[in-house]
């Protein structure tokens, strides 16, 4: 089973790049495998490395619709799978003539007309193949995970009153996790595994230049180097890729010529979002920029 445009690893990478996502070797390969084998992918990694973005890019690259299920604590079947539309059912019963047989009414009100499809059912029942994103699966509880097993391994959902709804097309499924709790073995077993980490300087440079094409090459490199330096500090929340793109755009708007101490101090709040972190970055990175140490040894690059 293959999805449009993902027939080889190179094609996958190109398709993703065309959708504005620069995938590394590993990401391209796993996306390719997912489309070939029809298996869900479990994507783990720190916040802000583009886990969700990968799903969006896959949907753009394949031209499939993206169906997203955002997980949270207490998420249950009624919100994820399907729900009966009680009010409509009630109305139906009230308008029904009183002498209608029970059997008739029951067959009537448990029909597809009264079913509210939630993301998982929507994805399974879709006419066209879709990309299904189950975001932050680690936020749910274990019961929910267990419920997912049927969906993920057989791509079917059983509704007692209607029978089993089977997938007409194979959806491309991505699950993301911040690893805040250990997922069950059973779930992991059904998935391909992809660990995403912060990209290398060169890759991030490409990403920034892709999304902020007007930025000067030298300045972009310096910006990415500063971001990497900031990430290497012990911060509460290290800057994500999206934040480095935002920063690049902001610097463009401000017409900054170079990333120096003054610029950093003015615009730091775009990449660092905690008060204590701000102090730390100003102290450690700002001083280095002020001295002109950074970049002195790196002209070669």
């Amino acid at each position, binding site marked *: 089973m293959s999805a449009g445009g993902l027939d080889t690893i190179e094609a996958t990478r190109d398709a993703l790049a065309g959708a504005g996502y620069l995938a590394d070797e590993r990401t391209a390969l796993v996306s390719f495998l997912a489309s070939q*084998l029809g298996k869900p992918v479990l994507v783990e990694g720190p916040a802000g490395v583009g886990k969700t973005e990968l799903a969006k890019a896959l949907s753009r690259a394949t031209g499939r619709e993206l169906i997203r299920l955002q997980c949270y604590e207490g998420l249950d079947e009624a919100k994820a799978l399907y729900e009966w539309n009680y009010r409509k059912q009630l109305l139906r019963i009230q308008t029904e003539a009183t002498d209608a047989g029970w059997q008739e009414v029951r067959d009537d009100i448990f029909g597809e007309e009264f079913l509210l499809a939630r993301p998982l059912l929507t994805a399974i029942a879709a006419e066209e193949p879709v990309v299904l994103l189950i975001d932050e699966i680690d936020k749910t509880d274990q019961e929910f995970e267990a419920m997912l097993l049927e969906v993920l391994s057989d791509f079917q959902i059983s509704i007692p009153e209607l029978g089993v709804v089977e997938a007409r097309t194979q959806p491309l499924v991505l699950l993301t996790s911040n690893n*805040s709790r250990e997922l069950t073995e059973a779930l992991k077993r059904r998935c391909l595994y992809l660990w995403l980490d912060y990209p290398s300087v060169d890759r991030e440079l490409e990403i920034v230049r892709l999304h902020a094409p007007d930025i000067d090459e030298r300045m972009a490199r310096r910006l990415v180097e500063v971001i990497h330096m900031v990430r290497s500090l012990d911060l509460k929340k290290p800057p994500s890729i999206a934040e480095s793109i935002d920063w690049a755009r902001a610097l463009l708007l401000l017409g900054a010529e170079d990333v120096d101490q003054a610029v950093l101090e003015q615009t730091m709040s775009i990449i660092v979002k905690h008060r204590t972190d701000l102090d730390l970055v100003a102290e450690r990175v700002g001083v280095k920029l002020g001295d002109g140490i950074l970049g002195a040894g790196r002209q070669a690059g």
Partner: protein
Amino acid sequence: MASSEPAGRRANSGLYGGMPGRPGPPGMAARLLELADEMRGEGVAVGTSELLDAFDALNAVSWESQEDFREALGATLAKSQEDRHVLDVLFDRFFFRAVEREAVDRGLTDERFTGGEGIDLEDLRERIRDAIRAGSDGEMRDLARLAIVAFGRQGEGSGVIGVDVQRIRRSLGLRGERQQSAGTELPDPDAVPRDNLQQFEQHVRRELERLLIERTRALPPARPLRELDRALPSNPAQDLSEVHRVVAQMKRRLASHGREHRGRRRSWAVDVRRTMRASLQTGGVPLDLKYRPRRPRRPELYVLCDVSTSVTSASVFFLSVLHALHDQFRKLRSFVFVERISEVTDVFERERSFTAVSRRIATDAGVADVSGYTDYGRVWLEFLDSVVDDLDPRSTVIVLGDARTNGREPHAAAFGRVAEAAGRTLWINPEPKLYWNYGDSVMAAYEPFCNGVYECWTTKQLEAFVNDLADLRAG
């Protein structure tokens, strides 16, 4: 070459050191199963379904690129980052070995470069440094061979590959670049990028292994990966943000821990008084049993940490973990000691940065007296003197130390009195169990007084311990 006589192969098969011969069918499937077996040996759960997936995945990718091959296995066999690390190490060893084994099988030897005397050492040094800076993989491999030939002659190898690698690195005068946080000093002109240097060392290691295999005509025995690969931070220069990330994760895991038991009744105690009162409504027949509410145990902790040089990082790390988990405990008081003991609870409350804490402990705590060696006996006496009155049966005393007294009197009886005053006494030893009671370690003297002794030198062990400690079901 491939046609070397099969008879010779059979005759050779007895030479493979401790390795068993190769039973079973040839081919890729069998090799993959062997790899999976090795992974299981390292504690990675590789099930049949994972293996089937791996075969499917390998059908979908081309085998020409080692990278794709490895990634395909990685995506299907390894389901966490730790698993992935194990796979990477095993993969290298396994497939690298497979080539070596084939060579031993067929009696192949390499064309050896033998012009070692003619090499100008200064020139070689320069070339290696350039190659490492440029990061060219092929060149580094070639130069690694040259370096081994050139320096192998100066003296016999030690026979231990790790030692030889370091020896060659030193004689080449290669240094990694300082970490960026090292401050404002100018970069060392001789230093080379750290990652590339590691890559070069890797090449030297491989070449040495290859030579060893050729010399002995046997493969080294497969040895389990040492747990140390996944160990706790052992030197202060290590990446502390990494450490904090571990702590943050552990905190979240602990917070969600126990939730799986929500809503399930487990061995509750009947509250007699409330049951009797409820029974009044039913004429004195206790139809409705009332249970005592289950309250989480929140222990009162007294943590004593050895911060002598041998264990500093482990203990400061441990203390910062406990302080990060502060809200799990009713009360937490921390002490550090070397020769004397001193309370540092407030240091942790005020300082957020790990380095600042280490610095303040080093400068202000005043725990080192003259020699800087740990004196456990004296510490117990002082602790008895100053704090023991605060201990009560609800309190838990945790000692973190290697129990190395440097030959001084252990005063186990004093420790016994501390343990008696406290409800629970736990000892965490950052050394592997294997080293306990060797040399000046007197673990055996203290062990009888403890309710539990734990070895704790990986984050996993630490997490398991903290889990036990904060466990709702405990005691």
